[in-house]
């Protein structure tokens, strides 16, 4: 997308002095307007099938963003994101779920969505603060495998804490709402009848934009630069006076907070989740999302989530003719899974900086085009510094 959108790459020092603004150039304003129009059209005419894919992708984008804070910006590889998502989801269910009607039902306090959504993030962040000091002693693969262990320990806890999670059968999750108005079965607003998917769409876009802008700004702050310094060279960062423990814990807690919120939404949207929802496979999909989308990039998280979570669904939708041939095992589900696996390999082979890398290349071409039109020299300098920052992403430890 546009150069002045809040893409928080770690820019070369020359540019860091004057960070690009959010709405500087006319092209970026035009892009934002175009984006709003597209979102509006999808909202109005998307239909339930496409809107549900989109809603699902938006939630995944929030989760991918949270993982990118920890893994992309701070360089701490984690496979445990679904553990924190699960914690957030069950917090939401506990606070916001319906009070039990029969003795065996899981608990629920029936509180408002304005309480349970932030609480989901806070509880996950607290868990992150508790686990962080132990986990962050470890590096590289050892950290990856310990966070992988968290996923299994989480599934065990969720399976056994029947009072909250409903045990192996799972439990229902609350839909957002205000007072009597609930997303699950919405009443008309000012005479307009919106569908559940449309309401979620609006809520999710708001949550995603707020988190994305927040993360992009954090990464331009002192704390964010400390995260990136730790990722690029731990020893070097420590010499420069970065407190390694504080930086890693900061990233871990921030990431857990967002993961908790994403988890609450992930369960709230279908209204149901069982312990095996929070699986390792899901965790790995989020890692795939940030690697394919672009490491240490806000837009990369969003595009990667679209690639990993929406693409198989879209493929499945546009490959229905294969359904009939399922007798040989070549169902559209299988085909889309294989295509997804192959695309992971092909993408990482040929575009190491991810989707965002492709887009940056496009931007460079666009600048050259501008440059030629204006006949100025400055843009070539800009373009070379842009490719430099792209190199930085590639050479980071991930």
């Amino acid at each position, binding site marked *: 997308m546009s150069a002045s959108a809040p893409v928080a790459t770690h820019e070369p020092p020359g540019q860091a002095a004057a960070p690009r603004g959010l709405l500087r150039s006319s092209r970026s304003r035009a892009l934002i307007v175009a984006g709003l129009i597209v979102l509006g059209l999808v909202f109005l005419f998307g239909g339930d099938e496409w809107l549900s894919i989109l809603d699902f992708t938006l939630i995944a984008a929030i989760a991918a963003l949270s993982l990118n804070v920890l893994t992309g910006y701070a360089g701490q*590889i984690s496979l445990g994101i679904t553990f924190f998502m699960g914690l957030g989801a069950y917090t939401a269910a506990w606070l916001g779920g319906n009070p039990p009607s029969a003795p065996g039902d899981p608990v629920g306090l029936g509180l408002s969505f304005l309480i349970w959504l932030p609480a989901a993030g806070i509880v996950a962040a607290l868990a992150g603060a508790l686990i962080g000091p*132990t986990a962050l*002693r*470890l*590096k*590289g*693969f*050892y950290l*990856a*495998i*310990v966070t*992988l*262990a968290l996923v*299994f*320990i989480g599934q*065990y806890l969720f*399976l*056994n804490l029947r009072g909250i999670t409903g045990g*192996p059968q799972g439990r229902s999750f609350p839909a957002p709402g205000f007072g009597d108005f609930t997303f699950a079965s919405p009443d008309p607003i000012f005479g307009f009848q919106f569908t559940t998917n449309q309401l979620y769409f609006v809520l999710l876009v708001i949550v995603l934009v707020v988190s994305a802008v927040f993360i992009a700004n954090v990464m331009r702050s002192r704390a964010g630069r400390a995260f990136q310094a730790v990722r690029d060279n*731990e*020893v070097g960062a*420590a*010499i420069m006076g970065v407190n390694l423990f504080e930086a890693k814990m900061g990233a871990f807690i921030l990431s857990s907070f967002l993961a908790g919120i994403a988890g609450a939404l992930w369960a709230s949207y279908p209204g149901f989740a069982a312990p095996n929802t929070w699986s*390792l496979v899901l965790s*790995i999909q989020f*890692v*795939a999302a940030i*690697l394919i989308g672009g490491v240490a990039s806000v837009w990369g998280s969003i595009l990667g989530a679209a690639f990993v979570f929406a693409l198989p669904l879209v493929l499945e939708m546009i490959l229905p003719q294969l359904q009939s041939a399922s*007798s*040989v*095992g*070549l169902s559209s589900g*299988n085909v889309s*899974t*294989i295509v*997804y*696996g*192959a*695309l*992971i*390999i092909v993408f*990482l*082979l040929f575009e*190491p900086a991810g989707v965002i890398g492709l887009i940056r290349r496009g931007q460079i071409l666009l600048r050259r085009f501008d440059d030629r039109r204006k006949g100025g020299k400055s843009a070539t300098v800009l373009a070379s510094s842009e490719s430099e920052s792209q190199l930085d992403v*590639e*050479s*980071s*430890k*991930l």
Partner: protein
Amino acid sequence: MANFIQLVFAGLALGCIYALVALGFTIIFKASEVINFAQGEFLLVGAYVASAAFLDWHLNFFVAVLLAIIITVLVALAFERLALRRMIGRPVFTIVMITIGLDVILSTGVVVIWPQGNRSPATPFQIQSGINYGGVHFGANDLWTIAITILVCAALYVFFRYTRYGLAMRATALDQEAALAMGINIRVVYALAWGIAAAIATIGGIFLAISETTFDAGLGGIALVAFPAIILGGLDSIPGAVVGGIVIGLTEEMTQAYANLGVNFYTIAPYILMILVLLVRPYGLFGTRKVERV
């Protein structure tokens, strides 16, 4: 007492399968510092091909096993040659992600080729057969698992200790640049590592399939349980992989029998053990410690 010995025996047999999986991980990691997330699917491919060759194509059991090893090794080599070789020098975690891509393709591909669901494993003997001694049943498949694992370990020891390429692999693991300077062909080393890992995985997969009456495409999931084994022993230690595997096998059997801590506690006991070990020794029991000072 007989019950306890029975459990120890079962734990040993299970631990040997974990050790075979963990060995594959460790050999690849030592050669190229990559954790191969598709290792579990090598087991799966091996088990399926062996089963198909033995039951559907009516080949001799040993020919079927050989065929399974050859096909799995070919898959591994093709992947190494076509994808991983282009990734040398890239960030390690990106390479790991590529192996996850292979994992997705293999686990789905197997279902596409053999869509029937549950399959019977290839086995030369009755699954229930075995020796009874002092009230303990020593199952034939478990005895074979243990024997073959010992054989594989011995063969690996001889290979790494006494052969030219074993030495080359050890040298590469120690210092890749120095090995290159000494004229070692790193590409051959990588290919060898992947080939050996795939062959060991096939053997592990065949025994894992035999340990139950039927198996399905979920077989590859065992690789995840082998993670505690490799971490426990230390990622880059081959004896560590064997020790770790056996410890994890025993832990799983013992907690399943004796620990009364809710549903499925035995599935997380290996992970808890692993975390406890890491708290004391952050590089595992036998892993190489990296020294970093500020």
